[in-house]
C-alpha cells in the first residue's frame, strides 16, 4: 500500500484505518438477515394489527416468534447504526461535531436495541396468561 500512498499522505496519517472490512461485511450480512426477518415481520403485523394486548403477548410466548423478534431488533439496530455512521461521516465535516454524533449514534443503536430486546424477552418469558 505504501507504493500508492504519497509520502505526504502517509505523514499526515491519511487514508484507510484498515477497519472498513468489518463494517462492510456486517452491513451486508445484517441486510440479508433483515430481508428475511422483515418479510416475516410484515406477515406477523397483519395478525397483530387488530388484536389486543393478549393477542400480542400470546404471540410472543411462541419461542419462534420471540427468537425472530429479538433477531429482528438486533439486526435492525445494528444495521441502522452502521448506516447512520456512514451518513454522519459523509456529511459532517467539523471533527468535534462528527465525533459527538458518532458517539450519539452508537449510544442510540445500543440503547434502542437493548431496550427493544429486553422488552421482548420480558413479555416472552412471563408466565402465560399473566399480565406483565
Amino acid at each position, binding site marked *: 500500500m505504501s507504493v500508492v500512498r504519497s509520502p505526504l499522505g502517509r505523514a499526515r496519517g491519511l487514508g484507510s484505518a484498515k477497519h472498513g472490512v468489518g463494517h462492510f461485511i456486517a452491513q451486508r450480512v445484517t441486510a440479508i438477515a433483515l*430481508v428475511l426477518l*422483515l418479510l416475516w415481520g410484515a406477515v406477523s403485523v397483519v395478525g397483530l394489527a387488530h388484536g*389486543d394486548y393478549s393477542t*400480542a403477548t400470546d404471540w410472543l410466548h411462541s419461542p419462534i416468534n420471540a427468537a425472530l423478534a429479538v433477531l429482528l431488533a438486533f439486526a435492525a439496530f445494528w444495521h441502522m447504526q452502521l448506516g447512520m455512521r456512514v451518513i454522519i461521516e459523509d456529511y459532517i465535516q467539523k471533527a468535534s461535531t462528527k465525533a459527538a454524533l458518532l458517539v450519539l449514534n452508537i449510544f442510540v443503536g445500543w440503547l434502542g436495541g437493548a431496550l427493544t430486546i429486553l422488552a421482548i424477552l420480558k413479555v416472552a418469558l412471563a408466565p402465560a396468561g399473566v399480565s406483565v
Partner: protein
Amino acid sequence: MADAAPGPRPRPISPNIQLDGGVWRWHVTMFASILHRATGMGLYVGALVFMAWALSLAAGPGAYGAFQSLVASILGKIVLIGLTLCVFYHMGNGVRHLAWDSGYGFRPKTADTTAFVAFGFAVVATILLWAAILTTGAAQ
C-alpha cells in the same frame, strides 16, 4: 495554465459535487440512490416505533392500548404507511445493492430497469400489506 497563480492548484472536484451541474444530469439511478439513503434515515424512526411497540407491550395492557390508539389514528396511519414504503423501498433497493456487491447489474440499462423495479416493489408491497391489514380488520 501558463499564467496560473503560484501556490497549490484547486483540487479536482468529484463530479457529484460539481454544483454548477458539471458532467452530471438528473437520472433515475441517482434518484434511487438518494432515496435509499433518505429511506434509511426514515427507518431510524421506524426502529424507534418498533422499540415503542415492544416497550409498551412490556409495560402492560394500558400502555399497549395507548400505543395502539396512537398508531391507529390518522396521523399514526400516515406515518406507518410512510414507514412501510421506506421498509419495502430500502429492502428492494438493498437487494439491488447486494447484487452490485456480487458484481451483477452494472449495465446502465439493467441499473435503470432495476431502479424502477425497486420503486414498483415498494408501492405494490405497501399496498398489499395494508390491504391485508385493513381487510382482516373488517372481517373481525
